[in-house]
């Protein structure tokens, strides 16, 4: 056994029981509380969740877990398991130690602050709050995890000097990681917790009632769930294919093959909807589709001798939902694609022509492969922004006409959570809808990265680490 593996191992030997301890001490009461608080308190005679069980003045037991603590410890447990797997594969690496150290530290401070919050609340409720043995154990355990992590990191770094460069690289990534943490993972996690409650404007002054997956059950069994799902798929895919990527690509290709000035002019025109305030833009559309004698569409149809002149939003709601969004959406991709196309060296096009390629073959074999990365970027970015966008639909049809005709997922989520719907703002239920969107978005991004083989696009850096 090499000394490196041995030294690394010492860290794990230390960390293993610590992690088990932390998870056990912190989670057993928590799990039991969900299953049956009575059972545990009958067995032990007291409530022993890690310092976060408080007794209300009325004698009711309420569980107040610090959101962060659970998060950290779940991650710690998962990480630890993966470390065991890694160790069995005989590959003890730097990340193991670093991850341990960070998680240990987070756990330690997380539990401490959790205790602070809980005891302050308990004080308000007039209940004495002690540090329970469970909490003390969890604190100790996270400290041990931290030490083990540092131990392991130092051991690996000593063993292999190139590790220093890697540490530097992670240093550069840290700010981004922090932002992603603060603006994505933490809100998503809060959303998740919220979705497990029945919090609404009718009961927000009470402590949260955790109702498990009830919100999700309710959502999936909603009579209009399939309709909304279908609407969302239709809205996102059609707008994306025909406008945000399709039309954007066509516009970019066209405007880069005509004279520069003219190309610039056309791009400007396509930018106008985007810089128009949403409300003004929608009011214009709503005016355009009016019945005679107001709507310009019907006026033109009249000149063309078409008898059928309905209120178009009722007649073809989807057509207009997609047009309205697409006209705004196309300009983003168009700008990105046309600058990407402009940056392809002109010689490549000349070479391809001489090699015998037709215009279509040049687009297919040269242009598209060379703007693969912008294509991936626009497709995934626009999918995600379409998934969560609903303001134009809200303003245009408000999900109608009739029931749920053009209502998409994000609009439902918005209405449930923040709209006085059936008399209340159902924050918990709305959060459940919202969280599903988050999950879909994550899955979609991963699929895109796979399909476009992102790793092949990212070339190895040419600068060697010295």
């Amino acid at each position, binding site marked *: 056994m090499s000394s490196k593996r041995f030294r690394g191992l010492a860290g794990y030997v230390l960390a293993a029981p610590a992690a088990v301890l932390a998870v056990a001490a912190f989670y057993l009461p928590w799990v039991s509380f969900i299953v049956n608080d009575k059972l545990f308190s009958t067995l032990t005679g007291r409530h022993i969740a890690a310092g976060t069980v408080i007794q209300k003045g009325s004698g009711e037991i309420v569980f107040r877990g610090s959101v962060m603590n659970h998060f950290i410890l779940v991650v710690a447990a998962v990480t630890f398991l993966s470390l065991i797997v890694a160790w069995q594969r005989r590959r003890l690496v730097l990340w193991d130690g670093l991850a341990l150290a960070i998680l240990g530290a987070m756990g330690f401070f997380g539990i401490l602050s959790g205790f602070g919050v809980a005891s302050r609340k308990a004080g308000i409720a007039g209940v004495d709050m002690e540090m329970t043995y469970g909490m003390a154990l969890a604190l100790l355990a996270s400290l041990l995890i931290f030490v083990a992590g540092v131990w392991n990191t130092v051991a690996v770094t000593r063993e292999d000097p190139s590790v220093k460069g890697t540490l530097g690289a992670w240093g550069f990534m840290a700010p981004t990681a922090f932002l992603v943490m603060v603006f994505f993972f933490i809100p998503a996690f809060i959303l998740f917790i919220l979705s497990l409650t029945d919090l609404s404007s009718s009961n927000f002054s009470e402590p949260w009632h955790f109702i498990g997956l009830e919100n999700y059950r309710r959502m999936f069994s909603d009579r209009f769930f399939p309709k909304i799902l279908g609407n969302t798929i239709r809205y996102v895919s059609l707008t994306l294919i025909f406008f945000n990527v399709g039309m954007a690509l066509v516009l970019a290709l066209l405007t880069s093959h005509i004279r520069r000035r003219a190309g610039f002019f056309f791009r400007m025109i396509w930018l106008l909807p985007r810089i128009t305030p949403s409300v003004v833009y929608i009011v214009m559309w709503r005016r355009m589709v009016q019945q005679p004698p107001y709507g310009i569409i019907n006026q033109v149809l009249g000149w063309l001798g078409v008898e059928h002149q309905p209120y178009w939003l009722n007649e073809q709601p989807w057509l207009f939902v997609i047009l309205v969004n697409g006209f705004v959406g196309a300009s983003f991709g168009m700008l990105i694609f046309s600058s990407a196309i402009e940056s392809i060296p002109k010689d490549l096009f000349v*070479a391809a022509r001489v090699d*015998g*390629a037709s215009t279509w073959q040049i687009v297919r074999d040269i242009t598209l492969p060379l703007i693969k990365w912008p294509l991936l970027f626009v497709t995934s970015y626009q999918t995600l922004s379409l998934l969560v966008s609903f303001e134009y639909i809200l303003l245009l049809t408000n999900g109608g006409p009739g029931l749920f005709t053009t209502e998409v997922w994000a609009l439902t989520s918005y209405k449930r959570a923040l709209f006085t719907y059936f008399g209340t703002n159902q924050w918990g239920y709305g959060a459940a809808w919202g969280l599903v969107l988050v999950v879909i978005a994550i899955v979609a991004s991963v699929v895109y990265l796979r399909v476009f083989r992102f790793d092949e696009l990212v070339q190895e850096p040419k600068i060697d680490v010295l």
Partner: protein
Amino acid sequence: MKVELVNLTKRWGDVVGADGINLTIEHGEFVAFLGPSGCGKTTTLLMVAGIYKPTAGEILFDGKVVNAVPPKDRNIGMVFQSYALYPHMTVFQNISYPLKLKKVPKEEMQKRVQRVADMMGIGHLLDRKPAQLSGGQQQRVALGRALVKEPQLLLFDEPLSNLDARLRLSMRSEIKRLQIDLGITSIYVTHDQVEAMTMADRVAVMKDGKLQAFSPPDELYERPKTLFVAGFVGNPPMNFFDVEVVIENGEYHARGVGIDLVVPAERGEKAVGRGKVIMGVRPEHVSLADEGASGVINIVEPLGRDDLIDVRIGETDVQLLVEPGLGLRIGDHVKLHFDTENVQFFDPDTEKSLLW
């Protein structure tokens, strides 16, 4: 393939790219387009390739006007200064791309690519992407791509400009050898006169979109038809003097400020009695002497094998090459001998040669 350019012109509004170019390239000939930056070499080449549409004039391949024939039907191969390899394709895919477009069967494609790659000495690099090759290797791939479809006309646009001097030298002879072996009519654009002179059967010198001369390298050097060609071809460039040619005692004298040279009768008689003319003498025909025109050394530039010195005579700077190690200094007074066997005379207004 025989290529004829008839009065070929390209303009973008006021900008003139090529201006009334007339020349004929024989089958199997290697022609260089030589000229300073912006003179219209690339423009002319791209018109031959079918990328640019001529504003006026005609391009004929084997006697047929091809102005309206698209590039893919012209059966040409082209090599660029930037190599213009497709960065997302491997070397194999790059070379085979023209064949793929022609729908050549897979097996034959494989064979032809391999043959060309072996010929270019890049057979072992077929799986690499262009970014993983050196400049020289990339240029070989580009050459392979141009050759693989067995074109009848090869177009080169400064293919060696991005290579280092040594590699340029070896690629130069390699391209020349290939061209002779394959016998493909070739047009080679360059602003490097050594390249043009050493490789080409005939050199077309261009300036401001106009064809200045079109002749074999030695003729270009010895019998320049215009002042521009005389000054552009040759390194260091030809020395020019403002002189007047007169007859005295049956001898032709070229007289200017500070010089008075006897010139051969058959050259002198064409310049005599025309008032001021421009006389050109190549640096290798000027030497240090005990007798002759006297001047002051302006510049001494050691070149290694020789020293290039610049001597001021009257109001003209004369450049000449001397043996190194003579200990010449700036400000030294020297006397110069002019070998007038090969002097040139030009009309100062039309800038055309008075001799040829």
